[in-house]
């Protein structure tokens, strides 16, 4: 069975380490916050100027001045700090954020990512994504392995305009966990019940398959 959105987020959450500062993009990455293991502490960064995102507010706590980068109302966690957009991107560009999780339309075997623009459709903008992929050492991309017509999103070469070059090192899809290195996708884990053959069939780029590909495990 392929993973649903929450299960992808659960698998990404296993990559978190105690003491990490983490930026979570919009969509599936946001769900990762719900699955932070209880024995570690992480601090979430929001690029509009908040380090230490707290839970969504109660009705009484709603404050127009306190939002996340998705423009949703949030609260500040204990120990949070608030700063300007320039300071926020100094953190991001300067490599101080330990992990960035974001979605994508396409990733290729050289670690290039396309995530903000589909020609012919209205371009709404890259927001902070280009800065995030340029600044982070450690980027996890979450996406479905193939689109609705079964076209692979893991390509030899991205077809859409790029958000960043040579920056993606790890991908968690609904079918697999993969590492990107040396010009190829390396299969690390498969979703429970998903065959290596299916992953191979839905990966258009070069895929390296080790002898043993374990199934993902979930503690929850």
């Amino acid at each position, binding site marked *: 069975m392929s993973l649903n959105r929450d299960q992808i987020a659960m698998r990404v959450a296993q990559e978190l380490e105690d003491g990490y500062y983490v930026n979570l993009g919009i969509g599936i990455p946001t769900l990762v916050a719900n699955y932070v293991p209880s024995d570690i502490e992480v601090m979430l960064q*929001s*690029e*509009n*100027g*908040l380090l230490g995102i707290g*839970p*969504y*507010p*109660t*009705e009484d706590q*709603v*404050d*127009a*001045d*306190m*939002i*996340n980068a*998705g*423009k*949703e*109302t*949030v609260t*500040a966690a204990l120990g949070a700090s*608030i*700063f*300007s*957009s*320039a300071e*926020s*991107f100094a953190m*991001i*560009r300067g490599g101080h954020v330990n992990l960035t999780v974001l979605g994508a339309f396409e990733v290729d075997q050289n670690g*290039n990512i396309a995530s903000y*623009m589909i020609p012919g459709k*209205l*371009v*709404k*903008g*890259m*927001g*902070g*994504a*280009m*800065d995030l992929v*340029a*600044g982070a050492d450690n980027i996890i991309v979450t996406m479905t392995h193939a689109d609705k017509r079964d076209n692979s999103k893991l390509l030899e070469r991205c077809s859409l*305009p*790029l*958000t*960043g*070059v*040579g920056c993606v090192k790890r991908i968690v899809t609904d079918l697999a966990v993969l590492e990107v290195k040396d010009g190829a996708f390396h299969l690390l884990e498969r979703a429970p019940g998903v065959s290596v053959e299916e992953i191979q069939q839905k990966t258009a780029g070069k895929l390296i398959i080790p002898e043993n590909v374990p199934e993902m495990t979930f503690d929850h």
Partner: protein
Amino acid sequence: MSGFNKVVSSYQEAMAGLSDDMTIIAGGFGLCGIPEGLITEIKRQGVKGLTIVSNNCGTDNFGLGMLLEDKQIKKMVSSYVGENAEFERQYLSGELEVDLTPQGTLAEKMRAGGAGIPAFYTATGYGTPVAEGKEVKQFNGRNYILEESVTGDFAIVKAWKADKIGNLVYRDTAMNFNPMAATAGKITVVEVEEIVEVGELDPNQIHTPGIYVNRIIKGSFEKRIEKITLAKN
């Protein structure tokens, strides 16, 4: 006005000198931390051909989106321009020019502009459409592109509190682009929730020193929220 007192009493006075084809740097992230009354005054004045440097362009009928109704904006420099149907229409019909700029690069363009730095190198956007036509230089084996800073004829800023000489304090994530915008205007106009006497703000807690500020006006804010998300229980 006398001495360092920068408080003005009308929006007309706050935006005096604004004319067609000027560049305005605006603070705000979405509808959070925007100078609502100053935007309304720009609409009232009806100036046209504006270039606006702002992370977003408001929504239909609110924030900078209001300036689209009478086609006052010629060009937007922004990182994200969704949530706005009239924007989309003018953009697709070619009436409105858009320079999509990565969010961190946009913040740094304002910061550098206000700090007297004409351009800077950044890895952001290298190898993407953003890099087209820009100089590339390698430092320590990595490629960077040269981005030029921005300044405006006006900067419009929203702060929480100001004292009468323009020292500013922002509140929560309504800070966002406002501190950089404040430094990057030839004339910087700040709309605040509260004006206090000189000495009431702790000098250690000032976010923007008054030297950057030319005019202050007390506004009343609607503070519209784009997405109200609540705790589940």
